[in-house]
C-alpha cells in the first residue's frame, strides 16, 4: 500500500482536494488506520484553533481603529479650537498613521497661525521660525531646548522654557512636556507642547496648546478656554498615548494633576 503524504491527508481533511484526488485518498485511508487517525487530528485541531481565538468582541472594533482608518487628510475645519494630540507611534517604526498625519497637519497649521514668529524654533542661522507639530529640525533652537532642558528653566532670547514633566509613552519613547513663557515667570505660557523621541532619534512635537490670537495679533484668550482647560486637555491626551510616568513636576502652577 502506498503511504499518503501527511500534507495530502491534511488537504483531504480540509476539503481542499479535487474530487478525483479525494476518491483516491478515501480508497487509501480505508485500509490505513494511522492515516484515519491523522485526519482526525487535523480536523480536531482546526475546530479547536478556530474556536480558541473566536469571540463576539471581534465584531466591534475599537473606535480608535475605526477613527484612524476613517480620518481624512483634509478635514482641518473639524478640529478647530482644541488642542489635538497624536495617539500614535513616532520615531523609529513610522511617525504616525496617515490619519494622525492629517491631524498633525491640521494642528501644525493651527499652531503656525497662533505662535508669533521669531521666537520658538528658530534655526541656528537665526532666521525666524515657528513651532509646528511634527519633526523638530535637528539644528533648531527647539531641538536644543528639548535636548538640554532638565530641572532648570532655560532662557532663549526673550523666551523662558520650563520642563513640566518627563514622560514615557506606551511605546517606551521618552517624551517631554515643556512650556514657554515670556521673560517673566508670571506671564501665562505662550504655548505648552509635548515632544517625544525614540532613543536618540529626532524629536517630534506631538501636540501643543497655544493661546488664541485676535485679529490685532494680541493674545486675548486661550486657544482652549483657560489654562486649566488646556492642562485638562493635555492630561486626556497623555492618557491616550499611554504616558503614565511623570518623572518630574517642576512647575506647580502649570503642572497637571
Amino acid at each position, binding site marked *: 500500500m502506498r503511504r499518503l503524504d501527511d500534507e495530502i491527508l491534511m*488537504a483531504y481533511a480540509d476539503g481542499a482536494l479535487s474530487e478525483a484526488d479525494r476518491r483516491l485518498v478515501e480508497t487509501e485511508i480505508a485500509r490505513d488506520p494511522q492515516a484515519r487517525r491523522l485526519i482526525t487530528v487535523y480536523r480536531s485541531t482546526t475546530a479547536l*484553533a478556530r474556536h*480558541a481565538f473566536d469571540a463576539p468582541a*471581534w465584531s466591534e472594533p475599537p473606535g480608535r481603529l*475605526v477613527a484612524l482608518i476613517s480620518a481624512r487628510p483634509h478635514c482641518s475645519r473639524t478640529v478647530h479650537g482644541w488642542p489635538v494630540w497624536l495617539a500614535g507611534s513616532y520615531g523609529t517604526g*513610522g511617525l504616525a498613521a496617515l490619519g494622525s498625519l492629517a491631524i498633525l497637519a491640521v494642528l501644525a497649521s493651527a499652531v503656525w497661525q497662533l505662535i508669533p514668529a521669531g521666537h520658538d524654533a528658530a534655526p541656528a542661522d537665526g532666521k525666524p521660525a515657528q513651532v509646528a507639530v511634527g519633526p523638530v529640525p535637528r539644528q533648531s533652537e527647539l531641538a536644543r531646548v528639548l535636548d538640554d532642558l532638565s530641572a532648570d528653566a532655560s532662557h532663549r532670547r526673550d523666551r523662558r522654557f520650563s520642563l513640566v514633566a518627563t514622560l514615557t509613552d506606551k511605546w517606551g519613547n521618552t517624551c517631554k512636556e515643556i512650556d514657554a513663557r515670556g521673560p517673566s515667570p508670571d506671564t501665562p505660557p505662550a504655548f505648552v507642547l509635548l515632544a517625544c523621541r525614540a532613543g536618540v532619534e529626532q524629536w517630534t512635537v506631538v501636540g501643543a496648546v497655544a493661546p488664541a490670537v485676535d485679529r490685532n495679533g494680541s493674545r486675548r484668550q486661550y486657544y482652549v478656554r483657560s489654562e486649566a482647560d488646556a492642562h485638562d486637555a493635555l492630561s486626556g491626551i497623555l492618557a491616550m498615548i499611554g504616558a503614565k510616568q511623570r518623572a518630574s513636576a517642576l512647575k506647580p502652577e502649570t503642572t497637571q494633576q
Partner: protein
Amino acid sequence: MDEDVRQEMIALLPRLRRFGYSLTGSMDEADDLVQGACERALLRLDQYERGSRLDSWMFRIMQTTWIDRLRATRRRGTVNDPEMMAAVPFDARIHEQTEARAALDIVRAEIALLPEDQRLVLALVTVDGMSYKDAAEVLEVPIGTIMSRLSRARKRLGEALERPRAAPARESRA
C-alpha cells in the same frame, strides 16, 4: 476611491484583530498590532493596487509588522488574555465546559510556542480560514511550504492535546 478602500479596511478589522490575537496571544497586543498595520497601510495607500485583494495586502502588512515587532522586542507570544478567554463562547458539542476551556487554553499555549513561520500559517489558514493558495500569496511562499508548515503545526497541536495532564485541583467540600 480611497473612501472605498477605507471602508473595506474597516470591514476587515474583525479578521485582522483575530489574526493579531492568534499571533500575539493577547487582545490588547492584537489591537496594537492592528493599529500599527493600519498606520503602515494608510501611509502606503498609494502602493495598494486597486482591484487586487485588500485582505491579502492587509494580512501581509500585519505579518511584516508583527515580524518587525518580534525582532525589535525579541519577545514571543504572551500569556492568554483573561478577558478574551472569558469571552470565548461555550460549545457544548465539543466538550463539557471545563474541558473545553482547558483544551482551548492548551491550544492557545501551544500556538504561542510554535515557531513563527508555523504560527503565521496556522493563523491564516486554520484560524482565519484562508485557502492554502491565499495564504501562500500573503506570505509569498509556495503552496507546498504552506502545507508542510501547517501540517507540522497541527500535528504538534494534536500531540499536545493528547499529552496526559494533571487533573485540575478541585475544592473539597466538608
